[in-house]
């Protein structure tokens, strides 16, 4: 616990010691607000559906940018050599780093609450769907973060980690989309639609938090964190 806390603190501070956190928060808030309010006044309804459909796509670009440095940078400048020779288990480092990136995401999501507050001021939105949507965002963002961090363990180049992260998140997002499912062979459709990140998100968006969706997101996060630990361990055998 102590080790995880130490890693968490170091990583979380490092986000705020560098411009990454500020750029991430500012651009995310600006972009999501713009996409949301662009349509909001045209429709004239106090719903946040537009926000929640846009954000997964914004996350797709932004989250790999947050996670790309987690391992790639350490490997590039060699600090991983000190880090991995400290008396600390591989999984503790992985979890510490993951939690730090998750908290940065948490801060960002918290700051975006200005949107539902505005909506609530202007009309009477359904609190349940908004709460559901926010829980969905955290889960979805959490899954993206785990995937992005795994991408970062593969390479020592941050750009490669960024692009790999986008590709992997995108892949997992679109396999559940209708356009893929229509063209996929029949037997694979249920698998794809179960694995797709987006499908589970839309069912949470309806305001129903089903344990199956929770289990799905936690499994994705757990699976990619496990892969990251595995990757770190394997690299000792290079």
């Amino acid at each position, binding site marked *: 616990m102590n080790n995880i806390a130490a890693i968490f603190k170091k990583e979380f501070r490092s986000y705020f*010691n560098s411009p990454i956190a500020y750029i991430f928060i500012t651009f995310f808030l600006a972009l999501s607000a713009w996409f949301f309010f662009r349509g909001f006044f045209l429709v004239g309804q106090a719903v946040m559906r537009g926000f929640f459909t846009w954000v997964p796509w914004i996350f797709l670009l932004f989250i790999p940018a947050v996670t790309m440095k987690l391992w790639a940078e350490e490997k590039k400048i060699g*600090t*991983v050599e*000190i880090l991995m*020779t400290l008396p600390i288990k591989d999984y503790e480092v992985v979890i510490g780093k993951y939690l730090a990136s998750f908290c940065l995401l948490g801060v960002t999501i918290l700051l975006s609450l200005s949107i539902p507050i505005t909506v609530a001021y202007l009309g009477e939105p359904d609190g349940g769907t908004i709460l559901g949507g926010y829980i969905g965002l955290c889960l979805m963002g959490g899954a993206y973060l785990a995937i992005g961090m795994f991408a970062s363990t593969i390479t020592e180049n941050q750009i490669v980690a960024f692009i790999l992260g986008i590709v992997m998140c995108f892949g997992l997002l679109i396999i559940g989309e209708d356009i893929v499912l229509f063209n996929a062979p029949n037997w694979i459709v249920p698998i794809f639609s179960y694995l797709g990140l987006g499908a589970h998100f839309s069912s949470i968006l309806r305001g129903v938090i089903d344990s199956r969706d929770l289990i799905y997101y936690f499994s994705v996060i757990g699976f990619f964190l496990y892969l990251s630990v595995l990757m770190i361990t394997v690299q*000792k055998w290079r």
Partner: protein
Amino acid sequence: MIEVINLTKRYGPTVAVDNVSFDAKSGEVLGFLGPNGAGKTTTMRILTCYLSADEGTAKVDGYDVFEDSVEVRKRIGYLPESAPLYTDMGVIDYLKFIAQVRDIPKSQRSQRIKDVVDICGLEKMVQKDVGELSKGYRQRLGLAQSLIHDPPILVLDEPTSGLDPNQIIEIRNLIREIGKEKMVIFSTHILSEVSATCSRILIINDGEIVANGTPDELAGRARGEEVVHISIRGSREEIEAKLEELSLVSDFKRVKSDDDACAYQIVSQKGQNTAEELFHFVVQNHWSLTELRQEAISLEDVFLKLTGNESATQPTDV
């Protein structure tokens, strides 16, 4: 304290460390000496649990580096080559981070940090960010982080690289000081450094240990031999064929050959009047002697001989 048995590490087809065995006790300063790419860093990385070996075992304080890796890491302070540090952290924040992961009780942390800052001469830098430090100070900070938990074993990979001569002397004194009670393993390719600080030297070449002994032993080993530089005018093939036959010559190497003369470095056992014998040898064969001189032998020669680095007749020194 440290026991290394038949360690082998391969990177693809290249063998970085080949069947290396040695041991070291507390109170010893062990110097790893070898040319670049000899396997010094790889050996250290295996000892510090950063890499896993393909074959063989290493034990630190009775703990296996593969099975009880965390226990091993607790006992080792490690400064990797070129002291990689987080440039976006403050100097004190960095030491606090290491102290926390190293499980130093909260009440003692600030005292330990103060101690290592004193030892490594970082007082003026505590307010700065790591990124603002010069190479020498980064090296010191790297050393500070490796000392913070007062480890019984210190592993330093080229600790003096990038330092100015004054700092080098300081670091060497520090290593000697620490080595009185603890074990220090450090690598270098500066020869005077090992003879100045080490109680034992391991010379590594191409992943193998080619020599293991105290500086005196190794120099003594060299002193058992004589090196004579000789220049002979005559046919090269003939001279070399005759040299091969000569029983007093244990080894020879052509330094230069042109139309005029061939120059050789001849190694032989001490106390055989090699120079005189060679003179007679040249006369008997009706060649002419253009140069004959006795050469001094030192640790540098041992190093060059064992590592087969023939081009570097003038090893660079500090």
